[in-house]
């Protein structure tokens, strides 16, 4: 088989779309919480209306985003943009006309970014990329209203469907982490800058979730240095996950250091560190949805059968925890 033929065959692989459905639902939930926060704080007008209509950002007539060429530049239009985002992401989560809804979300979110650039964070960009992949995916084939309409069951039919959207989401996660690792140009991420990056970040009153002045003591400071080095190393090692997945596809070919490489649970270690990294971020910095939206994409690290096994264990654990002694099977 030539390399080109292997490439074509790889992207033509099929698997049950369970992981994609998990990502679809989790990502939609996270975005719904974020959009609910906008509604709760009543800041849709501030964020997305023009300055003269109660917003915080202005633009000239020639630079008006497409959204405000189609709709009047008013506070009502900003509210409509928020409502459109809520409805589209709700449809993505429920799996109702999922492809159209995800595409609608991407367009509205892109317009929101063009209206107010500073309010559009890296995570919003990442979510748009994931949603674009979901548009082309069979993510609504299971656990969705679309599945219920098609099969009569919300659970749908987990028949094998194209696996490439999951591979693309995994590749995108690797790109984000590896790109972020390479882009760390500040010396505070390196030994010659004293590995002070996390310490400095945690001393930023606008970002920090609490007063972290105590980190200046010798031992806590040392720990932030270790965490800085680990974080950077974790980001830079993202491509190893792809390499490990590649080697695992043909373990019989593994010789020498490849065989040794296969003995290390690279993917599981990477995911465990990633979960710890994101949860620590969520506890220490006010980053909003960033840690949770990234974690929502983590099912892409796992094959559907691994997820099914995980769900099975959870179900079994749940059942044994809540089963009454009288219901226990007789010996």
């Amino acid at each position, binding site marked *: 088989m030539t390399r080109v033929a292997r490439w*074509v065959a790889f992207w033509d692989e099929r698997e049950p779309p369970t992981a994609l459905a998990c990502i679809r639902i989790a990502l939609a939930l996270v975005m719904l919480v974020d959009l609910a926060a906008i509604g709760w704080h009543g800041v849709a007008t501030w*964020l997305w209306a023009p300055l003269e209509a109660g917003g*915080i950002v202005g633009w000239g007539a020639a630079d008006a985003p497409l959204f405000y060429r189609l709709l009047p530049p008013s506070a009502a239009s900003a509210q409509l943009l928020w409502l459109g985002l809520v409805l589209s992401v709700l449809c993505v989560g429920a799996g109702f006309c999922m492809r159209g809804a995800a595409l609608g979300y991407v367009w509205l979110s892109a317009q929101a970014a063009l209206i107010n650039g500073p309010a559009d964070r890296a995570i919003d960009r990442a979510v748009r990329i994931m949603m674009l992949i979901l548009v082309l995916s069979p993510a609504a084939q299971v656990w969705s209203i679309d599945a219920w309409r098609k099969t009569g069951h919300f659970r749908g039919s987990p028949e094998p469907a194209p696996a490439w959207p999951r591979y693309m989401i995994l590749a995108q996660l690797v790109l984000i982490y590896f790109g972020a690792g390479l882009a760390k*140009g500040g010396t505070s991420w390196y030994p010659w800058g004293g590995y002070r990056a996390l310490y400095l970040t945690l001393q930023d009153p606008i970002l920090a979730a609490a007063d972290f002045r105590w980190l200046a003591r010798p031992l806590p400071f040392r720990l932030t240095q270790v965490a800085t080095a680990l974080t950077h190393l974790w980001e830079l090692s993202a491509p190893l996950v792809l390499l490990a997945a590649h080697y695992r596809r043909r373990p019989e070919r593994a010789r020498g250091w490849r065989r040794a490489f296969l003995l290390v649970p690279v993917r599981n270690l990477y995911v465990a560190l990633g979960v710890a990294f994101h949860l620590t971020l969520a506890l220490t910095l006010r980053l909003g949805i960033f840690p949770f939206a990234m974690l929502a994409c983590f099912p892409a690290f796992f094959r559907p059968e691994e997820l099914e096994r995980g769900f099975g264990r959870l179900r079994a654990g749940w059942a044994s925890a809540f089963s009454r002694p009288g219901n226990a099977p007789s010996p």
Partner: protein
Amino acid sequence: MCSFLASRRAQLRAAIIAYFVFFNALAALPTLGVPSAERLDRPFEQAELRRWQRMLAAVGVEISAQRLAQLYLSLAEAAEQAHQLALAPIAGFASLTQTEQRWRLFGTPDEQRSVLRISAFAGEREEVLYESLSPEYRWGAERLEYRRVRAAYNPSRAGPPPTYEGLGLRLSEQIFAQRPELTRVRIVLDRSRVPLPGAAPDPEHEEQYALEFARPAP
């Protein structure tokens, strides 16, 4: 016929994916920032240059700070141009969907930090309403600390974002509406140096980017 079409479809899909994977991987490669001699003159960048210079000297590469700055500028400019040229085939798509692949995530944490402080005045009497991270001054804290609103005032080394003044205007309108006795609102970013472990704390701080709003005439 069906298998021929399926195979053609798989080939087309693989080709499109190859196109996007290649260009997106290129796009995710970092450049060296926007090259600017003025930026390099700022204290933070000067300190960074000195640290890089010391690191290079430690591995046997002796280079003056001035030469290192010149080298950085020419490399950064070339990298930026090459980046833009290489990404031209997907620039339109990335712009339409706002999906540029630039992932920095705290790339260059600063030794300077800022606190947002909102004060209001009833005549000459000043009252602090909000201060970042203060447990005492919490007016509108939940809203001000929501990620998208925080982005409207959180300054970079180049200063606050263009939304800072607009946000100030909206905040002042709210304060005047809630507190009829107040006549003036002042918003500042108070800049100070992060206390480094083992070093004496630097008590100096500077109020920057002050915005003043007087109650509009009825």
